[in-house]
C-alpha cells in the first residue's frame, strides 16, 4: 500500500509538474532570483519527501505490524541501541549539511543583482544615469527605485533629473536589473511580488534591499502582489502591481509621468496661491 502511495506521489510529481507546480512550489518565472528560490525549494522538497515517506512509512508499518494479537509473542523489551541511535543522529546531521551546502551554492545568485541584459535600458538612454546613480559595474546600469510602504498603498520613487514617482503600479523596463530600496513611513509593511522573488520588510527608519530582473520576453506582462505584513485594518487590500515594458516604452512613460507630475505640481502651487489670496484679509 505504501509503495503504491509513494509511486502515486512520484508519478504526480513527474508526470504533471506544470499543472501541479502551482500547488506544491512557490511562484516564479518573473525574475531569476524567484526561479532560483523555486529550484532551491524543490531540491529541499525532494529531500523532504524521501524523509517524510521513510518516517511515516516506518510509523504506520510499526502500528499495523505490531498490533497486539494473541498469536504474537509479547513485546520485546529493548531499551535502546547505541549504534543505531548514533547512526540516525549522524544521518540527520548529514542531510542538513547537504541542505546547507546547496543553499550556499544558490545564495549568491539569489542575493546579488546581476548586470542588466543587452535588451534592457541602456546607459545611452541616460535618463537615469544621473548624479545620484552609483557607477554601473559592467557598463549596464541598475535601475534603483525607492519603494515606500504607507497605510495602505505603495509609493515608487524613480531616479532621474526630473521628479518622477508613481503609486500602486511600478513600471519597469524588461531585461534591466531593478534594485529596490524598500522602506516604510508609518508602520511595518512587507514588499512582495511572488513571481519576482522573495519579500522584504519595509521598516520605518531602515532601508531594505531587493532586486528583480524581468526577462525580455515578458514585455507587457503585469505581476501582482500585496503587502505581507499586517499593517492595519486595510492590510488585505494593500496591493501592488509591477508592469514590465520595453525600455523605449519606459522612457516615454517616464517623460509623460514626469510632465504630468510637474503640471499637477504647478496647478497645486497656483491653487495654493489663490487660496492664500482668499485667506489674507
Amino acid at each position: 500500500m505504501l509503495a503504491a502511495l509513494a509511486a502515486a506521489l512520484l508519478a504526480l510529481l513527474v508526470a504533471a509538474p506544470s499543472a501541479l507546480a502551482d500547488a506544491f512550489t512557490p511562484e516564479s518565472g518573473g525574475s531569476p532570483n524567484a526561479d532560483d528560490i523555486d529550484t532551491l525549494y524543490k531540491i529541499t522538497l525532494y529531500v523532504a519527501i524521501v524523509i517524510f515517506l521513510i518516517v511515516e512509512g516506518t510509523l504506520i508499518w510499526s502500528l499495523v505490524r505490531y498490533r497486539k494479537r494473541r498469536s504474537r509473542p509479547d513485546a520485546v523489551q529493548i531499551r535502546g541501541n547505541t549504534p543505531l541511535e548514533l547512526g540516525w543522529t549522524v544521518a540527520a546531521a548529514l542531510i542538513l549539511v547537504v541542505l546547507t551546502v546547496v543553499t550556499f551554492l544558490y545564495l549568491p545568485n539569489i542575493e546579488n543583482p546581476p548586470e542588466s541584459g543587452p535588451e534592457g535600458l541602456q546607459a545611452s538612454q541616460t535618463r537615469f544615469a544621473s548624479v545620484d546613480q552609483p557607477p554601473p559595474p559592467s557598463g549596464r546600469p541598475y535601475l534603483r527605485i525607492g519603494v515606500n510602504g504607507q497605510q495602505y498603498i505603495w509609493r515608487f520613487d524613480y531616479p532621474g533629473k526630473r521628479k518622477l514617482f508613481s503609486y500602486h503600479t511600478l513600471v519597469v523596463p524588461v531585461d534591466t536589473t531593478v534594485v529596490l530600496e524598500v522602506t516604510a513611513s508609518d508602520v511595518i509593511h512587507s514588499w512582495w511580488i511572488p513571481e519576482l522573488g522573495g519579500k522584504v520588510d519595509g521598516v520605518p527608519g531602515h532601508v531594505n534591499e531587493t532586486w528583480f530582473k524581468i526577462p525580455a520576453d515578458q514585455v507587457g506582462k503585469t505581476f501582482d502582489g500585496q503587502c505581507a505584513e499586517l499593517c492595519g485594518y486595510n492590510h488585505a487590500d494593500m496591493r501592488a502591481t509591477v508592469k514590465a515594458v520595453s525600455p523605449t516604452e519606459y522612457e516615454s512613460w517616464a517623460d509623460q509621468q514626469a510632465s504630468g507630475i510637474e503640471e499637477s505640481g504647478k496647478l497645486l502651487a497656483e491653487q495654493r496661491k489663490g487660496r492664500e489670496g482668499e485667506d489674507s484679509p
Partner: protein
Amino acid sequence: MEAGTAARRQLVHPEVLLRDLKPEPRGWLAWLTTTDHKKIGILYLFATFLFFVLGGVEALIMRLQLAQPDSTLVNAETYNGLVTVHGTTMVFLFIVPVLAGFGNYLVPLMIGARDMAFPRLNALSFWLLLFGGVAFYCSIFFEPPQAGWTMYPPLSDDSFSAGGGVDAWIFMIHLTGISSLIGAVNFVATIHNMRAPGMSWGRMPLFIWTILVYSYLLIIALPAVAAAVTMLLTDRHFGTAFFDPTGGGDPLLWQHLFWFFGHPEVYIMVLPAFGMISEILPVFARKPIFGYRAIAASTVAIAFLGLLVWAHHMFATPTATVVLAFFMLSSFTIAVPTGIKIFNWIATLWKGSIVFKTPFYFAAALPGLFVIGGISGVILAIFPVDWQLHDTYFVVAHLHYVLFGGSVFGIFAGLYYWFPKMSGRMLSEALGKLSFWMMFIGFNTTFLVQHSAGLSGMPRRVYDYDESLGVTAYNLISTIGAFILALGVLVTLINVVHSIRNGKRAGNDPWQGNTLEWFTTSPPPANNFDTIPRVRSVEPMKDIRREVLARTKPVETVAQPAAPRSL
C-alpha cells in the same frame, strides 16, 4: 494486615493534637480556597479548556469569513481582532497554561511527593492566569487589540492602535507571565527537592524532564517579553520611544525581544506534550521507552538550541547575511534532537505489542503530524526560501502542524490517559476514537491545503483574498476541515461531561502504567500517598507489579489472569 499497618504507624509517628482546626471547606469554596495541587491542576485544565473553546470559536469565524472571496461576514477590523485574540488565547491562555495544569496535577504524583513545594504560590499562579485571561477578554467588549499576537510596533503604538485593546493585552502578558514564572519556580523547586527516595535524575519520568525544562525555559524567556511589553506600555502612554523610529527608537528592537521569548515559547508549548507521549507510547506498546537517555538529553538540547534561533522569524527584515546564515544553521541544528525524539518514539513501537486505546491514538498521531511541521520548519529555515514563504499561509500551516499536530494532540493524549486518574472514571472509548478520527481528518483537511495557499501567494492575516489568486478552493477545503476538527473536539468535551458521572470505574491502574501516579487511588487522596515506595528504575510501577506477582502464589495467578489485564 490493615490493623497491623495502622498499629505500626502509630508506633513510628507520635500523636499530634490540633486545636481550632477548621473543617475543610466544601462545595465551590473548596475550589476557591484550595492549595491542593490536584484541585489547582483541575482548575487549570477547566479554565484553559474554556479558553481553548473560545479560541476555537474565533478560528471558526475566521474560517467562515475566508470560505469564499468577498465575504462580508465580518469586516476587516473585526477580522484583525479575531486574528489577534485567537493567537493570544491559544498561546498564552491555552497551550502554555494547560501544560502547567497537567504539570500541577501530575508532577507531585509522578515523583512521589505529597504536594508542590509551595502550595500557596501554586494557587496564586492559577488565579493570576485566570485574571489575566479575564482582563484580556474584557477588551472584546470595548476594542480588542488588532495588531496580531506578535503586536509589532509601530502598529501597536498609540499612534496606530489608540484603543485600550493593546493595553489589555500588555496587562494579560504581565499577569500570565508572573503566573508562569511563579509556576515555573514552583516546578523547579518541587522537582529538584521532592522526588521519591531512589528517583535519581536517570530514573525521573520523561514527562518530569520536560516539565523541568519547560520551567527553566519560562524562567529564561519570560523576562524578555515582560521587559518588551513594559517598554511598549511606556511608549504608548509615557512618551518614551523605544520602538518609535521618529523618536530615535527601532521597531526591530521589539522583534528581537519578542522573539527571544517567542521562539523558546514554541518549545515551552511543545516539549511537555513530547513528554506526555513519551510516557504514553511505551505503556501501550508494552515496551520500555527506546533510548531514555537520548530523549531526556534531546529535550535539554532542544531547549538550549531553542534559545538561539529567534531571528529566523525575522528573515525578511533588514539584517546582514551573516546573521541570517547563523540563524538558518542554528534552526537546522535543532532538527537533529527533534528527529532523534521522533525516531525514538517509532523505535519504541517497533516489535511492541500495541494495545490500541484512545490515548494511544492521539499519542501515535503526534510524531506523524509533527514530522510534517518539522519538515516545513526546515524548509522555512532556509532563509532565501523563507523570503518567499514568510508571513504566508505556508507559515500558518507550519505553525499549526507544530502547535496543533504537536502540542494539542499531545494534550488530548494526556487528557484521555490521565482523566481516569483525575476523576476515577474511564472516558468512553467509542466517543474517544470517534473524536480522534474526526480531529485527525479535520486537522489535516484544514491545514494541509494551507501550504498550497501560501505557495500560491496568499499572505496570512488577511480578511479577504482575490479570486484571481487561485486559492478559493484551498480556502473552502480548509474551512470544511476546520468544522470537522471542531466537531471532533466537541465529541471529546461531550465525552468528558458524560463520563465524569457515568464512566466506567477506573481503579488505580487502568492502563498498567509505568509511573508512580498509578500507585495511588483514582482520584488520589488529599495526601497522594500513604507510603511512598522506593524507586528502583524508570518504571517503578512495573517493579511493583512484578513484586506483587512474585508474592502471590503461582496457582492464584493462573486462576485470576484477567484481573491485572483488564484491558
